[in-house]
């Protein structure tokens, strides 16, 4: 039993674990849960985004978003903008960018989320068609679009509906980056985006 083979820690660990007896417990069925359902999930989603420090607005179409952004001061001040949404222009082409460090001064990013979660205001975004996932984190200002038909009640529905890109990256993003590490005072804008604007279509 308990032998330590320094050259093969994998075997050592697995042998140790196999030599132990741990009572068996069945894996529960998660589809049977009676999870919370909101009367108006879109409204709940909107409220949650505000609670976690973001802005959220319901809007009728992508062209309205484009029009809206035209008067955004953060957009007007931004020098380098990237948009993955058709109909909303940007001036950075990720195809020309070979090293993510070149995106250092990215100010403004527009992206569409695949799904929104009412219970916590989280939006699922992936790097499926994206060359540099760093755009989500390095930008100062982030705009995300979500279709109202893609808003679910809870994380259970969310995980059941999404398949992670394999290989690839996916993140549930809820609000702008934040910290309360100095005396529990909430400060928006830690290392990721300093502001988050969500549009529900």
């Amino acid at each position, binding site marked *: 039993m308990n032998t330590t083979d320094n050259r093969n820690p994998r075997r050592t660990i697995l042998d140790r674990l196999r030599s132990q007896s741990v009572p068996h417990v069945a894996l529960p069925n998660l589809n049977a849960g009676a999870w*919370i359902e909101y009367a108006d999930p879109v409204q709940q989603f909107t409220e949650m985004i505000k609670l976690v420090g973001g802005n959220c607005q319901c809007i009728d179409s992508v062209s309205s978003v484009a029009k809206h952004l035209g008067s955004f001061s953060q957009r007007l001040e931004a020098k380098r903008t990237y948009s993955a949404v058709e109909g909303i222009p940007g001036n950075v082409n990720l195809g020309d960018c070979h090293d993510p460090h070149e995106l250092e001064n990215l100010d403004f990013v527009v992206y569409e989320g695949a799904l929104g979660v009412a219970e916590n205001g989280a939006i699922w975004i992936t790097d499926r068609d994206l060359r540099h996932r760093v755009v989500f*984190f390095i930008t100062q200002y982030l705009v995300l679009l979500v279709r109202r038909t893609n808003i679910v009640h809870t994380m259970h529905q969310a995980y059941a509906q999404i398949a992670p890109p394999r290989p690839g990256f996916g993140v549930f993003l*809820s609000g702008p980056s934040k910290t309360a*590490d*100095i005396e*529990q005072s909430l400060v928006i804008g830690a290392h990721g985006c300093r502001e988050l604007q969500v549009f529900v279509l």
Partner: protein
Amino acid sequence: MNAIHNTNHTGSRNSPPALDHPQLANIFTADQARAHWHDGALWFVRQKRDRMAKAIPEWEELRSLASQIKAHALANLPEYLELFERQATEMGAVVHWAADGQQHNQIVYDLLKENRAQRVVKSKSMLTEECHLNPFLEAHGIEVVDTDLGEWIVQLRGEPPSHIVLPAIHIKKEEVSETFHQHIHTEEGNYDPTYLTRQARHHLRQKFLGAQAGITGVNFAVAETGGLVICTNEGNADLGVSLPNLHIACMGIEKIVPRWIDLSVFIRLLARSATGQPITTYTSHFHGPRVGGQLHIVLVDNGRSAVRSHHTFQEALHCIRCGACMNTCPVYRRSGGHSYSNTVPGPIGSVLAPAMDAHKHHSLPYACTLCGSCTDVCPVKIPLHHQLLAWRGEMAERKLIPLSKRLSMKMGRIVLGNSLLFRTGGWLARFGLRMLPKWLTHHRLNTWARQRDLPIAPKQSFRALFQQRKKRHQD
């Protein structure tokens, strides 16, 4: 520097005892104003957690499910680890195994050396703290920057974190300001948290951009998909691994969950329990490396299998490191995280630390009032206070409690087991409580009385009162 040895069974290490919890707590409580402030700050977090938990009608069901999933995963851990390894490898990651902290540190160092990485950014990882990775890498000339704001603050101050979720919860903004002024030349006397955070953001951005590797911890690893989940509010883990080509993720072997869908249960519980948020800002899922990059995953035992072998304590491995048991603990809140001299403090730390080294951490199971509040808030239902009580029994059996405690327990057994002795003792106590002067009861040797007053003793014993009543009823 690095006192990590192999352990084959629970708590078999024999390092010298650390300073006792009461001694270290004394240092913290000497500054009463700070101790009160600390207590209040954590209670505030506990209340936020309560509001969040109450807003979810199925909260208790979620806790049960989480506990079942973890118990299942723990029972089948070797199979799930192998499945995870297969799946992660298929996604292009490289999986390494480390039996202890030394092996873990060596693996990380070798990877950095191979890739000629001299500057590293690290996101919060209690595992790397536990293994003392930073001093190991620094001794080899590598610059490691902790990028979680709280962790960076304690790193600059040369202290360990005092809480697993809120590493700098014991530090005041004036002290942060001073530290930043010293290290990054912020304005002297500017205590504004927003100003200080902005300066840190600015400074650390350069560290992110200059880093040649990113090291992260792991919150969950999914066996069926080979994926990793990392939760942060600051976005530091994501930024740290999206710029350099090398990502090293370090995880304890107990972080495995079987299915993708299981994440839904844990993600709903984690941030609500930890900080009273509905979810962390970033809940990131990594399957394999970035195109052109490398992802290395280090699976670490370092005493975990020893905990698993112990029937009473194995459930402690269900822990998802939310910190709720600390925030609620009346002892932790008043004594501070450093009084535990262990990477993980509070109730869960007091269960896990003796399992790693019973001799060194023998006083921790007593840093507890047995109020049970930790057990009530734990999102994965670890019976924490039962385990702490069980540890006290173990300590007594192994003769690891101080003689004074052992003798008084022995006396207690003799007195409580003999009715004449018990009665005489009661009479003596009533007499003594009324008659003895304070200098005699509150002297230096009686540590119990240091922050307590003795009750006013009744004139009669309960037994005498009861006899009288009975007599009155009969008359």
